[in-house]
């Protein structure tokens, strides 16, 4: 309960106006007395509450640090060289400094979602009232599983979410304070704090998405959420085009409402990039998804948008300069990114529109969402006749500019993926843009090449133009974000997941900083869908996997159903919808296994870690938000794989399969400690190649609780993928076969031969009721 609220219970009160019995006075709010689940041991945990649990995980998955910088520059003692066993002026070591930066990244990520949630909630409370009832998924009683688990409260109305968010905000301040000079000094304690930030992040994300689903009419956990379109080709350029970028859908809602109220959808197209696009399409499927965040610059440079609307997170901070190049005004709508624009919130809309259309200002700041729609739509309609379109860069101009290249290689050195830009530019100078067009799908859109080029060549525009010439302007189908997994779905598949008969849950999450282009996400998704894993997707990953059609012209969303079952492909939604992924894992423990949820974090995490074969893959992880989302998964016992760029998060959390002593686990039936094999082997892991990631994903779905049938299913996928991509049987099967019945039937002789050569003996690896928590052992009193 919030400290500002008051509750007074009096058995009997005599006063001048009478005698009152059983008096219960509540000031501020109604207490949820109907929840008969007893409170667990850790409601509203503080920084140190779950430290012991974190240390159990971190003892098994030790950090391998890869400093991105050898210095600490955070105070005026510095810069301090921390290389090797040197210490900073404050005494900090290299290991502690790396984990401190990890913590800061997670605090930034969690704060960003929390601030997003706060803005969303405050606005929606203003519009819908505090008593607006939360209703986020059909056939679902366990709403807000993260909030229930962490906070021990069961939110029913928007008002109830305030308590959860107050808690998250308070904790994030505490966490950030620990990174100050002269506070925490131990790297493992910093790591534990990063886990805490991650856990908080999932509460914040859940609050944000619950608010918007409950009030804005988003799909409520339905498998057959509406289809919309994604891609450059989805935008009808004969209409005025509004481009919305960011993550907070409130300004876009007002734009869509204005279009509906004024019957302007026939004249105006609304498209978005990044999570705002997801949430626009959840609000109204007529809103189009242009693409992932990496297309931001590419789309502006295409010259299509007539007006650019930005809200918050992952924006290009030079968006005003970029929009100016195509003559499009920018409307900023959030205090978090005001971009130096004049605040016109309180000016008459027509005056603002006039200033924008006449170019008297490159953009404006409008902080009242209810005013954004009118200004944006009117501006777009008036700007459309002025659109420069693809004439912004002609082919002749491209070739002329390409001829000025000095062959200095700075573009290649600046490119995060060392793409062979220089050679492609030289080819363009000779009249062929084929090489540029070939590179374009692998470009992450950062434009570092342009900043590095001494000739100031607009290299991203080169790529955009070349791709356009090659017809890379398709549109694709995408099912809009469905939100949470329902209780009914959990009941139906819980057994198959916990016993391993459904081989695993693969969650494709995150940003678009890919090593070799976004289509690799489609490769991963398809591989596991064919194998009847459950595949969930959010954010940019949910977009990128849509961007390829097969020979029949169908993409993955058209080929696979949207329900939470084997072979299902679920677009869960935007970044904040990631809370539904951890929420589904939590609900498996609660609904299928009947484990109490309320303020009972350790037990549920222990259950998920030992039983639920879920793996997160953030192949293009880029942001601090991605770091905190992953961190929330780690504390819950869900391993996460990132692409090679993810190594820049400065450390991996790696298990040592060769150290038997690291994998001792309690049998909850007897209290005996047994070796269970390295399952799952890693908690946070950067893969170098897509193929490596896929093999590792199959391996990381194994859990100590797998039945023999389940383990055989999981091993068959691991072996098959390993044979395909590594060209041979895995050499570590003896660590995963517990009894002969674990071996896939069709491979029995071959596998048993291999593992017996390695000294395998049946029974060495335990089949048990696994737990890391001593208190879960069912001792006879």
């Amino acid at each position: 309960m919030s400290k500002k609220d008051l509750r007074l219970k009096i058995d009997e009160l005599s006063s001048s106006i009478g005698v009152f019995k059983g008096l219960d006075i509540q000031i501020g709010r109604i207490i949820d007395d109907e929840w008969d689940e007893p409170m667990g041991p850790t409601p509203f945990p503080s920084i140190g509450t779950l430290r012991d649990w974190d240390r159990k995980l971190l003892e098994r998955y030790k950090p391998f640090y890869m400093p991105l910088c050898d210095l600490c520059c955070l105070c005026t003692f510095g810069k301090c060289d921390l290389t090797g066993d040197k210490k900073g002026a404050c005494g900090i070591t290299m290991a502690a400094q790396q984990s401190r930066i990890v913590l800061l990244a997670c605090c930034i990520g969690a704060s960003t979602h929390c601030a997003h949630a706060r803005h969303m909630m405050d606005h929606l409370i203003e519009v819908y009232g505090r008593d607006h009832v939360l209703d986020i998924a059909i056939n679902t009683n366990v709403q807000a599983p993260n909030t229930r688990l962490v906070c021990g409260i069961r939110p029913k109305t928007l008002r109830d979410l305030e308590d959860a968010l107050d808690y998250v905000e308070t904790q994030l301040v505490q966490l950030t304070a620990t990174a100050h000079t002269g506070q925490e000094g131990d790297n493992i304690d910093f790591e534990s704090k990063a886990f805490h930030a991650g856990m908080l992040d999932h509460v914040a994300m859940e609050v944000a998405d619950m608010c918007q689903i409950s009030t804005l009419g988003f799909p409520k956990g339905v498998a057959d959420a509406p289809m919309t379109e994604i891609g450059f080709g989805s935008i009808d350029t004969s209409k005025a085009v509004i481009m919305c970028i960011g993550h907070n859908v409130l300004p876009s809602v007002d734009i869509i409402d204005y279009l509906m109220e004024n019957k302007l959808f026939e004249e105006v197209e609304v498209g978005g990039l990044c999570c705002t696009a997801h949430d626009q399409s959840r609000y109204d499927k007529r809103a189009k998804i242009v693409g992932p965040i990496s297309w931001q610059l590419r789309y502006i440079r295409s010259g299509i948008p007539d007006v650019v609307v930005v809200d918050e997170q992952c924006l290009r901070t030079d968006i005003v300069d970029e929009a100016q190049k195509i003559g499009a005004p920018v409307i900023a709508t959030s205090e978090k990114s005001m971009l130096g624009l004049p605040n016109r919130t309180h000016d008459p809309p027509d005056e603002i529109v006039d200033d924008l259309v006449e170019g008297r200002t490159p953009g404006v700041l409008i902080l009242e969402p209810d005013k954004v729609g009118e200004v944006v739509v009117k501006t777009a309609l008036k700007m459309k006749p002025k659109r420069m379109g693809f004439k912004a860069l002609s082919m002749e101009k491209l070739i002329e500019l390409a001829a000025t290249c000095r062959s200095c290689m700075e573009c290649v050195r600046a490119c995060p993926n060392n793409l062979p830009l220089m050679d492609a530019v030289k080819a363009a100078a000779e009249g062929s843009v084929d090489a540029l067009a070939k590179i374009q799908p692998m470009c992450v859109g950062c434009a570092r090449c342009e900043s590095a080029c001494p000739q100031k060549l607009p290299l991203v525009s080169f790529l955009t133009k070349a791709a356009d010439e090659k017809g890379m302007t398709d549109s694709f189908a995408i099912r809009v974000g469905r939100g949470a997994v329902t209780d009914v779905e959990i009941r139906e598949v819980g057994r198959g997941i916990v016993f391993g008969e459904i081989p695993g849950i693969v969650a494709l999450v995150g940003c678009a900083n890919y090593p070799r282009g976004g289509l690799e996400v489609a490769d991963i998704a398809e591989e596991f869908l064919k194998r009847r894993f459950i595949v969930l997707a959010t954010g940019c990953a949910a977009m990128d996997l849509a961007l390829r059609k097969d020979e029949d012209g169908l993409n993955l969303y058209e080929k696979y159903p949207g329900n939470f079952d084997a072979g299902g492909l679920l677009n869960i939604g935007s970044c904040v919808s990631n809370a539904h992924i951890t929420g589904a894992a939590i609900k498996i423990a609660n609904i299928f296994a009947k484990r109490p949820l309320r303020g009972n974090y350790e037990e549920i995490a222990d259950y998920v870690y030992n039983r639920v074969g879920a793996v997160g893959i953030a192949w293009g992880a880029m942001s601090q938000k991605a770091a905190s989302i992953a961190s929330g998964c780690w504390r819950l016992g869900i391993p996460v794989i990132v692409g090679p760029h993810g190594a820049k998060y400065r450390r991996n959390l790696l298990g040592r399969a060769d150290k038997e002593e690291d994998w001792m686990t309690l049998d909850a039936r007897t209290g005996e400690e047994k070796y269970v094999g390295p399952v799952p082997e890693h908690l946070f892991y950067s893969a170098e190649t897509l193929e490596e990631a896929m093999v590792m994903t199959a391996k990381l779905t194994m859990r100590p609780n797998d039945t023999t049938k389940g383990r055989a299913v999981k091993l068959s996928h691991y072996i098959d993928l390993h044979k395909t991509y590594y060209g041979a049987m895995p050499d570590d099967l003896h660590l995963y076969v517990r009894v002969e019945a674990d071996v896939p039937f069709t491979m029995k002789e071959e596998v048993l031969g291999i593992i017996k050569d390695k000294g395998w003996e049946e029974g060495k690896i335990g089949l048990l009721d696994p737990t890391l928590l001593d208190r879960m052992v069912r001792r006879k009193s």
Partner: protein
Amino acid sequence: MSAKMRTGQTAEIPGPKKAHVIPQPKVAASMIKKAKRPLLVVGSNAPKLKTNDGDLVDSAIRFLKTGVAVVATGHLVKTFRDRGTEVYSMPFMNLGDRLTDPDWAGFDGEGPYDIVLFVGSLYYMEWLVQSGLKSFAQDLRTLSLSNTYQPNASWSMGSMPVKDWLTALDEILKELEEEK
């Protein structure tokens, strides 16, 4: 900073402790020859990098024949297998982690490696793993054999044109082959 110390990616600059540039190929060869337990790490880009032997996988096979243990990272081991050669295989991250453990006895259980050579990795991944080794495996000598300077190795080839690098790589291999 000399042209030889120009890093392969603009911002991946050296810290206070930076790799020595290998002045001559024979210096690298000499370090490898003197080592008791050398290990060559071959990254997933190797098949894309053409050498005088064919590609970097073929050159790695030459190293193997001189007695240097070879480990392929990513899923590269399949390429070696397709060419009829067995080498060790380990994910790059695991390998970096193991190399920080002074008690790790190597792939053959015979003891820790005393020099680790790197070729064919994604530039930034090699940069990061060597950064980890620089601080957390201080007794381990690392040697980058790529054609772009790797500041976090103990020793690195200087940045050089591909043609010069191919010659240098060939010279190192010839020295090792002569020794054998």
